């Protein structure tokens, strides 16, 4: 379910790094919590974000939520296909529904993120809290 080569944030974003480029999206847990996604607002190519800074919003039938940048960097590419097919976020959150590609400003920031096992333990804890 959660790819082992991705890193994860506490705000439920993932990042996959190839060289100096990171691909960012939201996790399966996040899309499930949001429900049907109806709209996504993404930044322009060239925009710069600090780690944990909001870079866009995702709107579902239930709520509108911020999406936070896992690490700092500059936006190289934006998945414009999501504008017309936001439901992709529900269908394939870890693949086709990637949101932005960024050039990493500081690869060391990745160390602060969770790996797949850590994230799964984190959401298991969340679910336990919710059902308690």
């Amino acid at each position, binding site marked *: 379910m959660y790819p082992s080569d991705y890193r994860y944030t506490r705000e439920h974003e993932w990042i996959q790094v190839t060289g100096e480029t990171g691909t960012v999206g939201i996790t399966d847990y996040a899309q499930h919590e949001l429900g049907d996604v109806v*709209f996504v*607002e993404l930044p322009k190519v060239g925009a710069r974000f600090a780690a944990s800074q909001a870079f866009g919003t995702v*709107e579902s039938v*239930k*709520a*509108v939520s*911020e999406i936070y940048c896992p690490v700092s960097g500059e936006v190289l590419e934006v998945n414009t296909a999501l504008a017309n097919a936001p439901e992709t976020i529900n269908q394939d959150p870890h693949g086709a529904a990637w949101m932005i590609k960024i050039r990493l400003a500081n690869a060391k920031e990745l160390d602060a993120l969770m790996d797949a096992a850590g994230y799964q333990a984190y959401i298991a804890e969340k679910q336990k809290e919710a059902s308690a």
Partner: protein
Amino acid sequence: MRYLPKSPSEREQMLSALGLRSLEDLFESIPAAHRLNRPLRLPGPLSEMEIIEYFRARAAENARGYTSFLGAGVYNHVRSVVTDAILQRGEFLTSYTPYQPEISQGTLQAIFEFQTLMCQLTGQEVANASMWDGSTALAEAVLMAERVTGRHRVVVARSVHPEYCQVLTTYVRNTGLAVEELGFTPSGQVDVEALRAAVNEKAAAVVVQSPNFFGVLEPVAQLAEMAHEREALLVVAITEGVSLGAVRPPAEADIVALEAQSFGLPPSYGGPFVGVIATREKFVRQMPGRLAGQTTDHQGRRGFVLTLATREQHIRREKATSNICTNQALCALAATVHLCLLGKEGLQELAQQNLAKARFAQAELEKVPGVKLPFAAPSFNEFVIELPRAVKLVNTRLLKEKIIGPLALGQFYPELAKRGLVCVTETTPRAEIERLAAALQRILK
């Protein structure tokens, strides 16, 4: 528990639930210097009969037998008893914001119809479920233009209602949005050349009103083209909705901020009124307020729900698109009923009557020695006259003859102390227009 709990035992109960001993403990976090240490200075209670007597006496203070030539954002138009009969139905009168579609189909459908009518009138693609009034609609339209363009400067025509401009200034005082004024030409329209110079790549929007505060129609299509050349939006305010029965709708505008008071709401000392924001569909997610939308239920039946409310404050808190959450549902309903009674042809006929009466008044007043019509551009049911002396002084004399004269423009534009704004609607009898002309002739002699 009652909505307004006040019995001592209920207070005790709530305090103990909070683990507090007294009301004083509850307010402890407020510094003593800022706490009220005496009872509010309010008059004592009155009996039902005393209350009725009090309001009868206040109602008797209303001026009777006066003819008013005031407009300037609030208009006297005919209203039907049908509107009031529908408004006073308990299902509409006492219902709160329709968050729950399962118990609010009537209100939601009324709002949906209202939005549809507003789109048809303004030539725009979407209209929201109403704003407080025209002035707050305009301020929100400007904030919306800022969000859409990511630019932080707006150019506002001086011929926009000065009180709308004050509301806008209040809204943006601490937001970092710069407001630049734009003058008018001797004909009363926006100065197009000055506009060309003022609208640069930093401008989020050009804001005009049409008919403008002087009653003059603006060249909306041309202004839109100029704004769009610099990728700025054109925001058009409309204070007199009836004009839309005669004037082309501002379809070229990107956002329309409309005051809908003219549709079935009495002037009532300035409110409550109902505002509207109408815009292009592509900007809908930056639009404040919410929309009522049509959908189908699980049995395939037509139904109505609130949509796009997810961006509003009850869900988004401080990140909400705006803080307008409650809409003016009852006022919007009045406008909906009024417009449905009029119909398309009825509205056109009403607008033609306003136009004809205003032209007659212009002609009558122009005949009075000393009275001039300074603005040559086309107008609707309001127009500016220039007198040989201060309008304020002339109005004092008119008042003695039971005529509430033109709005003295000097209070908003010091250089226009000798100019007044005359409003004539279908409710102004021809004989009263002639009486105004005759009175002016006597006063100015």
